[in-house]
């Protein structure tokens, strides 16, 4: 923003922001107060809140994992990638094709398995796919989802974005909408638009929480473990390797990075690979967790991931993780006051809009860490 702009709008914009901030602050205080009072007088059961928080954390981990990739492309390539959601879907299908092939080898035709069971009949539940009964297939599938989507993301970059590398953020954003459209329906074309179940049920543990139980099953545990390992990996990669340093340099100042001799094109390729790989893994884990796969779950997740990334501050991977967790938990906590689950998504979108209005740089904004 220029000085002229500042002078013109400072008085007004400050007051709007402050008003909004005060309103949001009052709202948060009221909600927290109501929560505490409700817990104290027993109208909100602690175990129910515990269940919401657990679900929110699991959901948030997926959004955080997928958000890292979105945040990286946003800060390094400088555009909001609307095709990220469909990359997630593509990754899930690629990975689950691998899992089906390994777990169901010989039980059905190769085509049926590689296409994640496009027709009714033999699917994941029938093949008995789960982390406890077919761990190898699950891990291989997760790996395939990561690697396959990484390569796929580079291919998309080569075809769609590379020819317009110099263009601004807006033309690239519009292009990514086209990519999203093409990708989503290409997935339908190949894998069919049938929604299907992918996993058999797994043993779960009921944890006692004051006045009830919170249940966690083996797939929840797998999701937590895999997400934490992947996030740690990205953290180490960015902090310890030369590539990570180059990425941070590029997100800070692209021209300066170029002048310093950083091979920007190679860094961009790695950005797509890491972002795509994480998106694919997140998609795979999402399907493992929910036990169903369909052609548009990634697209439906996309705006929530945007919410997470914007809340955390674009460019910060830690922001994306924290943002994902905050959005996930608030979405589920909103069901305390707005029952039925109709408003969870609306809550997340409203939070995102509020963050954009009050603090567009997000919670971790200003310090771009990757």
């Amino acid at each position: 923003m220029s000085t002229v702009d500042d002078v013109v709008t400072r008085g007004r914009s400050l007051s709007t922001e402050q008003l909004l901030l005060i309103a949001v602050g009052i709202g948060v205080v009221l909600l927290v107060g109501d929560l505490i009072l409700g817990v104290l007088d027993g109208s909100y059961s602690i175990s129910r809140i515990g269940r919401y928080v657990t679900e929110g954390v699991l959901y948030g981990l997926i959004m955080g994992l997928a958000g890292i990739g979105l945040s990286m492309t946003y800060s390094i390539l400088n555009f909001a990638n609307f095709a990220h959601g469909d990359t997630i879907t593509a990754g899930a299908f690629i990975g689950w094709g691998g899992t089906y092939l390994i777990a169901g080898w010989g039980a059905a035709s190769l085509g049926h398995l590689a296409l994640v069971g496009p027709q009714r009949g033999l699917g994941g539940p029938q093949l008995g796919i789960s982390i406890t009964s077919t761990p190898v297939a699950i891990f291989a599938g997760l790996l395939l989802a990561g690697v396959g989507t990484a390569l796929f993301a580079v291919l998309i970059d080569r075809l769609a974005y590379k020819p317009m590398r110099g263009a601004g953020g807006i033309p690239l954003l519009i292009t990514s909408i086209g990519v999203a459209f093409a990708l989503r329906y290409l997935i339908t074309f190949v894998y069919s638009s049938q929604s299907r179940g992918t996993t058999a049920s797994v043993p779960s543990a009921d944890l006692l929480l004051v006045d009830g139980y919170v249940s966690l099953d083996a797939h929840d545990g797998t999701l937590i473990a895999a997400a934490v390992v992947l996030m740690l990996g990205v953290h180490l990669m960015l902090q310890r390797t030369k590539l990570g340093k180059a990425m941070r340099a590029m997100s800070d100042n692209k021209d300066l990075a170029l002048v310093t001799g950083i091979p920007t094109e190679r860094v961009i390729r790695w950005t797509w690979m890491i972002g795509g790989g994480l998106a694919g893994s997140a998609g795979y884990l999402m399907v493992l967790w929910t036990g169903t796969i369909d052609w548009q779950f990634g697209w439906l997740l996309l705006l929530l991931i945007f919410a997470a990334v914007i809340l955390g501050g674009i460019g910060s991977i830690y922001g994306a993780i924290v943002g994902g967790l905050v959005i996930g938990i608030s979405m589920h906590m909103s069901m305390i006051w707005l029952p039925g689950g109709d408003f969870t998504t609306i809550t997340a979108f409203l939070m995102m809009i509020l963050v954009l209005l009050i603090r567009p740089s997000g919670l971790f904004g200003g310090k771009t860490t990757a």
Partner: protein
Amino acid sequence: MSSTANAERRTQLESLWEHDAVKIIAVIGAIYIVYALIGLILGYSLDGIVNTLRRMTYLIAVYGMVTLALNLHWGYTGLFNIGVAGFMAIGLYVTMILAKPADPGGAAQYAGLGLPMPIAIIGGVVAAGLAGLVVALPALRLRADYFAITTIAFAEIVRLGITSDALQQFTILGAELGTGGGRGLIRNYDDPMNVIFQLEIFSSFVDLTNSLFGFGPTQARALAYSIVLVLVLAGIYWLIQRTSRSPFGRVLKAIREDEEAAQSLGKDTNMFKIKVFVLGCALMGLAGILWRFRRTGVTPEAFRPHVTFYIWIALIIGGAGSNTGSILGSGLFVAVLFEGPQYLRRVIDHLVAIGDAPNTFAGAVGPLLSANPVPLVRYTFAEFLTLQFVIMGVALILLMQRRPDGLLGHREETAAAIPLGARPSAAGGGSGGDGSGGSGSSGGFAHSQPRDQHDGSDQQTDGGVDADGTGTQAGTSENSDSRVSSDSTDQPDDSATDGETQ
């Protein structure tokens, strides 16, 4: 001899082609001819062919309206709105709730307010405009991409809200209303076009279409409805064209090109942006109403983000910033990308026996190993309607890569009141004021206006606007020139440095 005659004719044709109306008529005419031929190939009778063309007209008119409104946002002012579907939904839903009879009648339906249709339409348009105001007031300060995310999130909030069971039925001030939730609303009010259909003269229109095309009364009504939509489209075109040529519109273009320059000339750009955003949203609401208020009902599914992207594709085909382009883009989008694949499929189906397709992609690709592409072709054909969306996406990508300015986007719009091409050298108005007119102002603004820097017109665009934005659209040449020169003496140094510091 003949070559000069040819050349003359060619220049004549070219100058004819320059007219916007000619372009629109030529392209729409070509679309009609192609679809008439398709109808002939498919063996349609005359009324079938005319009905196909009528459907095309209806779609082009509706998409044209929304694209024009979006052009006002993005093409003229640079407001990156990707929540179009939300504003259309608000317009239609409010209108339907206002118009539905207060006594629900059927068991599964929800009550409305039972207001007369014109009031309901005004209510819907105003509601869409107000929604635009709600979004614009806080969000306009945001960067273009954040603004985009805010608008699409808003549109999704609207869609999820009208899908939600919680709003399925609600009570405001004692009036029982409802959005119908996921099942949507059924139109249980009279056909809103009855105003026209019940005129005496309309029965002769029915007779006329019957004798000309063999239309029945229903088809005649549909035709009349499409004609009304075309008239509304023409009205919106005229409105936006007039807006864009007015001092108000020139400020909008200045904001798009360089908001700071516009501010430095004393324009309250925020106010302009809010006004234009509300106006565009209201028009989107109107288009949403006209799109579906005659149908038997509406569900929230009609307002998925797809609709927004259709409009964007149409806008980018035509070229952002050109109203003619918006209509051309809508025509081409509807004819080639929206309806085209389905008709192509029908024609192929009619001409060639394709045979049974394999059920899955694997069944289609597997035989390729034994060099048998037939199952893949059959599968592709069977899944053509899915591929249509892939084609749309690829078209958008290719347009952005190869022709981001669209068909008509990159042309200079002469906003000055005097002809710029043939400027008299000495005595003309160009250097009228104090000698620092035309060229001086160009130099001053060239830094900040990369898109139009070789042409002085847009520089005069900014200069020609009164401080309060209420100046007359086309003054006399002395009048407008003196404004240009006075502005250029006041401003060029500031704005030049402004441009360089960016």
